[in-house]
């Protein structure tokens, strides 16, 4: 296996180095230097990514290349050896995602530098942020599934520690535990599918596994489909857990317990995009089973609808955004399911921009309002922080898909793909369109409730320069990213035609215009209902609304499921553990004491006793040796 080096390895090394140095020396460096080091590590990664993209554009390097940095491990199963190298896979998809991860990641670092200023554990925060970026980089750049699992696990760890960053808060600890458990469920699925691949194919790196010849081999053998279902199911479980799709989504709304920049990072640049990335990366395998593709599309639509329903009735600003993320991820899965990978990645990128913007501006709002997150107690903030209000409005418009924003183009691309889909196209399009309208409504409900109506916050705390500046960059991106659709489509190569990577935002088709019109109506409806601080009917406490607000009972169902385990654990603690840690060791220890007491008697301290014992032993040994040799070997 030939190993070589590629400059993209730096994008992995830099955040790791940043994490290490901030973790080790951050306390002595102080807050400013730590933030600078951590941010510049990510910024440099971003620059390296841009440099790589330019090199591809100038045709200095191949647009798709798999680089083995070093040989990592060999698995041997049934005489079949699987070589795994620690390597990078650099193509249009990973470069695109890398620019988002490091670019948006850098802006979030920049934002946090001021936002987290008063936190006593500032350096730990930046260290973890860098670990998060590094893990996500590894996940995206890995050139085989084994290395991807490392990044996958790293992302899970980083999200766990960042969601529970305020560890003294019991709810944060609970939320981080929940995120971790849900992620581990996904990890197990991913691992299982990798194990099956190792046993059945013996190849883990993308270049070989996803090559046309390999796919044809799999396709020609009908017995493939028995285990391929297991592989794809495992991948899907992993993707569902990471990307918070039904039914493994419950951790995402609770993840709001973390600091707001963490929410932005999880929802925009890292973490939740991992599942979409995995499916897009593995799409040649999924295409072998059209049933699986349909399942993905339908589950994506259901998730989008489900999350939109929940988002409608939330009172917490961040929870609205959390459910909206879930809903948008549902769109992306829908796009993957109908084979529109380009549209999915396009929406992933625009979503990263406007969702990061929304979360960061929400963070400013929460700071301004002294930590208040309940929209019913916010209001009229447009007079205190008009510029933030504007930026949030732009982000909301992009999320809702108002024309000329980036979200409009990407969402239309997905809806168009759903419309064109031959299988269950009509229904998927209708659900998608409905969710788009709901999205517009709940987004602007949040916007109007927060920024309009009577002023309820006294002595607002105004945001500082860097936070506003980083949000401004995101605002620009959230608007203009939509015009890159064709460029992105070209970026995936001239051979994209028919491969699912071409992007068609057919904004002028009748159906698209209809959806756009309905979206605009939904925005006006939201203004009419909430624009002047009216009493909020959706924020009330009725049984049905609370049921929706709490995520349609998934938490309770999982609670009941885990209740059984808790019962079992309690039983083990009270019964088995008492036995094992109480009586059994006592008995064991007691027997040793008794043995010791008995053996102690042989130690009389009398030299002559020892002498006798020694003589007897020597005589016995002598006789034994003589018996053994038979007394014959020496005489010869």
């Amino acid at each position, binding site marked *: 296996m030939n190993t070589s080096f590629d400059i993209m390895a730096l994008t992995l090394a830099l955040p790791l180095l940043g994490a290490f140095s901030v973790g080790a020396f951050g306390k002595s460096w102080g807050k400013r230097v730590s933030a600078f080091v951590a941010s510049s590590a990510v910024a440099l990664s971003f620059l390296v990514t841009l440099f790589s993209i330019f090199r591809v554009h100038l045709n200095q390097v191949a647009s798709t290349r798999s680089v083995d940095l070093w040989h990592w491990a060999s698995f041997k199963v049934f005489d079949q050896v699987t070589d795994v190298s620690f390597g990078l896979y650099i193509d249009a998809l990973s470069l695109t995602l890398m620019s988002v991860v490091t670019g948006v990641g850098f802006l979030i670092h920049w934002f946090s530098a001021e936002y987290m200023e008063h936190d006593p554990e500032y350096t730990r925060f930046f260290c973890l942020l860098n670990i998060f970026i590094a893990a996500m980089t590894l996940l995206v750049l890995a050139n085989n599934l084994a290395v991807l699992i490392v990044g996958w696990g790293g992302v899970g760890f980083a999200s766990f520690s960042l969601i529970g960053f305020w560890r003294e808060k019991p709810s944060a600890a609970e939320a981080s535990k929940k995120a971790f458990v849900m992620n581990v469920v996904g990890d197990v699925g991913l691992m299982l599918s990798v194990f099956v691949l190792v046993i059945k194919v013996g190849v883990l790196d993308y270049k070989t596994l996803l090559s046309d010849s390999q796919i044809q081999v799999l396709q020609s053998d009908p017995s493939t489909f028995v285990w391929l279902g297991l592989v794809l199911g495992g991948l899907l479980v992993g993707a569902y857990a990471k990307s918070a799709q039904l039914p493994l989504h419950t951790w995402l709304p609770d993840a709001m317990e973390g600091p707001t920049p963490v929410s932005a990072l999880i929802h925009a640049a890292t973490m939740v995009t991992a599942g979409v990335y995995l499916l897009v990366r593995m799409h040649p395998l999924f295409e072998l089973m059209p049933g699986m593709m349909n399942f993905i599309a339908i589950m994506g639509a259901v998730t989008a609808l489900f999350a939109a329903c929940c988002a409608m009735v939330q009172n917490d600003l961040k929870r609205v955004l959390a459910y909206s993320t879930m809903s948008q991820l549902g769109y992306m899965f829908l796009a993957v399911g109908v084979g529109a990978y380009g549209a999915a990645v396009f929406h992933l990128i625009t979503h990263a921009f406007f969702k990061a913007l929304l979360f960061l501006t929400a963070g400013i709002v929460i700071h301004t309002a002294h930590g208040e997150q309940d929209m019913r107690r916010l209001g009229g903030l447009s007079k205190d922080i008009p510029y933030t209000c504007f930026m949030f409005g732009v982000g909301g418009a992009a999320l809702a898909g108002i024309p000329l924003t980036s979200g409009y183009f990407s969402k239309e691309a997905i809806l168009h793909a759903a419309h064109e889909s031959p299988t269950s196209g009509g229904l998927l399009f209708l659900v998608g369109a409905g969710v788009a309208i709901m999205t517009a409504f709940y987004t602007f409900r949040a916007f109007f409730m927060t920024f309009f109506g009577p002023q309820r916050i006294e002595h607002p705390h105004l945001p500082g320069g860097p936070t506003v500046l980083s949000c401004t960059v995101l605002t620009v991106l959230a608007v203009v990213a939509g015009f890159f659709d064709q460029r992105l489509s070209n970026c995936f190569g001239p051979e994209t035609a028919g491969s699912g990577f071409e992007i068609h935002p057919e904004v002028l088709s009748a159906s698209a215009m209809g959806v756009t019109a309905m979206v605009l109506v939904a925005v006006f409806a939201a203004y009419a209902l909430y624009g002047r601080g009216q009493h909020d009917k959706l924020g009330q406490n009725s049984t049905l609304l609370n049921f929706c607000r709490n995520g349609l009972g998934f938490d309770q169902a999982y609670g009941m499921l885990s209740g059984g385990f808790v019962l079992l654990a309690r039983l083990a603690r009270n019964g088995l553990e008492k036995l094992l840690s109480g009586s059994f060791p006592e008995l064991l220890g007691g027997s040793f004491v008794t043995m010791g007491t008995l053996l102690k008697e042989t130690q009389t301290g009398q030299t002559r006793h020892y002498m006798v014992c020694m003589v007897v032993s020597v*005589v016995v040994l*002598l*006789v034994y040796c003589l018996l053994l040799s038979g007394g014959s070997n020496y*005489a010869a």
Partner: protein
Amino acid sequence: MPDILLAFVGGVTLLAALGVILSKEAVHSALFLTVHLLGIGALFLALNHQFLAVAQMLVYAGAVMVVFMFAVTTLSPEEEPLKLTGSDGFPLLGMVAGLGAFGAIYWGLSTSGLSGHKAVSDGLVAPSSFASDLFGPFLLPFEGTAFLLLTALIGAVLLGGRRQIGDG
């Protein structure tokens, strides 16, 4: 050496050994031991080794026994009446263990058979030939003995010194 003389020397050596372990007073034991060592030296001579016979008599029966006599007179221990059947049972135990050991060794000697063992030569081993061996192939063990003696000397001085360790 005629057989009769050899038998006499062997008998004296054995009786002296018996005297060592059966004397009431330690000083008698020490004198019996001297006789025993001289007998052993004579037996070495019967085995045609001049140098070790002389060394046995001079170093062992001479120098080492002086140390023993010095210790015996320094301590002047009280008489120890010998009882073959005591309440502690050690005399009986010792007899049984000793006879058992002898039985085992004798059995080993008789079963392994000594028919293959023949005398190398009838001539005496000259001290010069032993010396060339000692300073040739056995140089390292020989030098090791020097180091051992030095260590023992230092140890004895340290143990027997008037001042206790740590007194300054």
